């Protein structure tokens, strides 16, 4: 079955991205397909490569990134929500003349259309709210 996930909670603050991550692992384990994970609202912070939790604690952005690499996942951060909140890739950083960028490997910035497209083509769209 084809799943997509929408995540609206900030990592380390709200449990929603933790739950979504465990859910993603479980569905992949069962052989389902994960079409897209869409990060919106405070969920965009899941894509920060600068997140530096204590070394004996989970690193949520790094976990997503590893999962994406293993399974070829499409991790999309809403570009409008992300820019507003300071989640930039190299291209956006250049465009807006910002001093740096902070997007973790495996994540991409893209439009809200990716949420709608995922909703249209997936058998199940699961929202993990904040």
């Amino acid at each position: 079955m084809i799943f997509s996930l929408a995540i609206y909670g900030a990592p380390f603050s709200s449990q929603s991205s933790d739950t979504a991550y465990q859910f993603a692992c479980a569905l992949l384990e069962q052989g389902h397909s994960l079409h897209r994970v869409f990060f919106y609202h405070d969920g965009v912070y899941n894509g920060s490569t600068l997140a530096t939790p204590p070394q004996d604690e989970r690193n949520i952005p790094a976990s997503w990134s590893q999962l994406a690499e293993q399974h070829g996942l499409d991790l999309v951060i809403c570009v409008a929500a992300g820019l507003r909140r300071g989640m930039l890739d190299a291209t956006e950083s250049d465009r807006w003349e910002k001093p740096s960028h902070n997007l973790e490997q495996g994540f991409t910035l893209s439009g809200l259309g990716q949420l709608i497209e995922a909703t249209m083509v997936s058998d199940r769209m699961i929202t993990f709210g904040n």
Partner: protein
Amino acid sequence: MTEQQPDPKKILFLNRRAPYGSSLPREALDAVLMASAFGQEITLVFLEDGVFQLKKQQDPSNIEMKNFSKTFGALALYGVESVYVEQRSMEKRGLTLDQLLIPAKIIQSSELGALLEEQDQVLSF
């Protein structure tokens, strides 16, 4: 945006938050507009504090925010005409249909269940 898209789906947006305190209502509305650009069959439901999103006379200029409620008026132009407000949510808050920015149908929570069942997907905000 229209080339080779899958068939339109019935998508319901469930809005349960008051405006301005959280940005979620505004972000939900952006998603609604995008879904309409994709030609989906859209239903909007306002429940609990979500009904406040449709209150007339909003003016957030003194809190330095955009008045996104103006966009509700444009929804009909985008073909979004299926708009519901839940009856008890309105009553509890002392709201009546004439205080709302756009025409909305009153729906009871018992009818909402059936409306949700009819959809292909439900997006909660």
